């Protein structure tokens, strides 16, 4: 068989983008990965102990049946919305600035989703019986909606991510000659024989556009369904139509803030200053300002309705948040998610990556607290029982260790990924998709990618 010619788009930053992948695995990598593995190991040990002894090793009790694990579940699924938001929603709206950061954001989706799913498994009293969900699944239960939506979301994200990675894997296959042979075979297998033919790029763009619509629908569905696990019960404050939109907004908010953190780390660690200019952070800053204000709106809409309505069982939960057991968390959350970040964004954030990262870290801490403050107070004052039993909840070291290991796992996957694959999409940020050697018969026809604008323009 004749060896087919391979073409790649021409990207002026190719050197810079491929640089992090080139050096062999060194002591610095091993130190980082080893450290993360140790943290994960502690979490695994804690989980094994929990598996053997039972969920009693957590701080959960009656009536607080759900605790940190479910908070983590909601948080990780929320974090996962970053990638889809940036690569799908911004793709549909034609925001060009998304291109260099699309893959970094999607990778965040991909590597946080599994830990959301894991959180559910960790929370189950009988993880060994998980197959019962398939064998005896009842679609009336919101948990089945969750199961379907999250599985489909994870699966679709993998495909969406992989497809956009395809031309770059092929480029790695052809350009990285000094890497170990196993790594080259990995690129060869994963590239699926990609040749960079204009027709291939053309079809890829079409599929990506189509999938972006589907992914946008999925992203809205997934986080709304996650919130319905709470909203479909008749427990006070949970049972509200606002819980879905509020969860969704929070998800995109924390996800976008997480992208800021990830971009800043990548930029610093892999010397991508030219590829990821400050301008990108300024674009994200505008988005984050909108989301902060949206968050304030939701917050006021929810709590003013509660307060004005003055329904006794809802007021129990309301005061738990504002002045009760969760008041410190509630106010820290308000400052971390809204007050401080919005001030930073408005007065300090422009052209300052350090301030942007500060605000984004605060937002993510705050959003985790928000999930906690939405879920737990209601459980401590459930309907009827708020008069009879007043619950309280203190997480144990097991729960914290497992939480830490989930975050460590996410960082580990992310850092390994960035050492083997280009974290900035080479083909999407290329000046032109015109291959190095032109196709004579294709020249006059041209294709959409050829009229691409320059990066960072």
């Amino acid at each position, binding site marked *: 068989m004749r060896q087919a010619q391979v073409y790649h788009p021409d990207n002026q930053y190719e050197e810079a983008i491929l640089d992090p992948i080139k050096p062999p695995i060194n002591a610095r990598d091993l130190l980082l990965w080893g450290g993360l593995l140790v943290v994960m190991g502690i979490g695994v040990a804690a989980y094994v102990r929990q598996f053997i*002894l*039972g*969920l*009693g090793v957590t*701080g*959960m*009790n*009656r*009536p*607080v*049946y*759900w605790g940190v694990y479910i908070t983590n579940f909601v948080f990780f699924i929320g974090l996962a919305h970053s990638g889809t938001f940036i690569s799908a929603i911004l793709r549909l709206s034609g925001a060009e600035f998304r291109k260099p950061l699309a893959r970094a954001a999607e990778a965040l989706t991909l590597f946080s989703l599994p830990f959301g799913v894991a959180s*559910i498994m960790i*929370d*189950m*009293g*009988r993880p060994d*019986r*998980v197959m*019962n*969900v398939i*064998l*005896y*699944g*009842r679609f*009336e*239960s*919101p*948990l*089945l909606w969750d*199961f379907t939506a999250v599985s489909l979301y994870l699966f679709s994200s993998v495909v969406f991510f992989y497809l956009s990675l395809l031309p770059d894997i092929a480029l790695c296959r052809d350009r990285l000659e000094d890497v170990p042979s196993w790594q080259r075979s990995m690129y060869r297998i994963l590239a699926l024989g990609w040749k960079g033919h204009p027709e291939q790029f053309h079809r890829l763009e079409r599929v990506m556009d189509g999938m972006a619509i589907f992914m946008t629908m999925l992203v809205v569905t997934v986080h709304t369904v996650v919130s319905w*696990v709470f909203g*479909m*019960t*008749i*427990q006070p404050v949970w049972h509200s139509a606002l819980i879905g939109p509020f969860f969704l907004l929070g998800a995109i908010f924390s996800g976008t803030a997480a992208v800021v953190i990830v971009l800043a780390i990548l930029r610093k660690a892999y010397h991508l200053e030219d590829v990821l200019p400050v301008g990108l952070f300024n674009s994200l800053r505008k988005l984050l300002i909108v989301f902060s204000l949206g968050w304030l709106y939701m917050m006021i809409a929810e709590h003013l309705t509660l307060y004005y309505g003055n329904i006794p069982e809802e007021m129990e939960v309301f005061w738990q948040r504002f002045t009760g057991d969760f008041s410190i968390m509630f106010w820290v959350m308000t400052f971390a998610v809204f007050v401080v970040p919005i001030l930073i964004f408005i007065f300090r954030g422009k052209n300052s990556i350090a301030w942007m990262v500060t605000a984004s870290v605060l937002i993510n801490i705050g959003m985790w607290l928000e999930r906690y403050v939405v879920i737990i107070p209601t*459980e401590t004052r*459930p*309907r*009827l*029982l708020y*008069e*009879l*039993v007043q*619950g*309280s909840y203190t997480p144990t070291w097991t729960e914290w260790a497992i939480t830490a290991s989930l975050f460590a796992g996410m960082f580990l996957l992310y850092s390994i990924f960035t050492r083997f694959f280009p974290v900035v999409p080479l083909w999407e940020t290329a000046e032109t998709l015109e291959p190095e050697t032109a196709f004579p018969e294709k020249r006059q026809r041209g294709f959409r990618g050829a009229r691409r604008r320059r990066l960072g323009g």
Partner: protein
Amino acid sequence: MAKWSMVIDLDKCVACQGCSIACRFENNTPVVSPEEAALGRSILWNEVFPLRSEGEAAIASAQAKFLTRPCMHCEDPPCIKVCPVGATYKDDEGIVRQNYARCIGCRFCTVACPYGVRYFNWYEPSWEEGMDTHLNPDRVAGRGDLEGPAIRPKGVVEKCTFCIHRHHKAIARAEAEGREFRNSDYTPACVQTCTAKARFFGDFDDPNSTVSRLSQSRRAFRLLDEAGTSPKVIYLHEG
């Protein structure tokens, strides 16, 4: 087909907690240590709650109020709706049952139940030395499910079943004696043991049964009627 229902007369209840204890022995509910109990992990299918009383008059009268609470066996139970695997279900006679063999321990039902009648096995159930040899040997005969007084594995949810095994036993006895099963053959342990005879049990669909007559009392009320769960446990107000 009977529709089993319970009436609890709070005026007669002396809060002796006999129902709670009888239930524990009848249904082999695991015992937890005082530390665990302080965390709110004690398992009492039939819990007795002191009611908060407010105001000077309540303090002056020094009258404590109590509420004993079995499962409400709702006609429209929120717990069944949310169970992803059908481990909890309502049988033909309206009893909300729990199959320990299928439960995956997600605790959605415990969160969804507005009455807090569902309990989770945080650890492997255990009994003190000596007690473990005197557990109730009764079992619910059936499809290999674990129900009622069967010893629960850790990590599953359990709840009041109106002593479903007693129902099965009563039917079997009537059969052995060669007679028709009568509704009075079946009584849950809490009703049988109640010191003040404050509890009544029977068929709600039978207009002549004690429960359906008492349900017409002006003192009759249901817990959280506004939640739309249609409980089959009916309380009678004090006084």
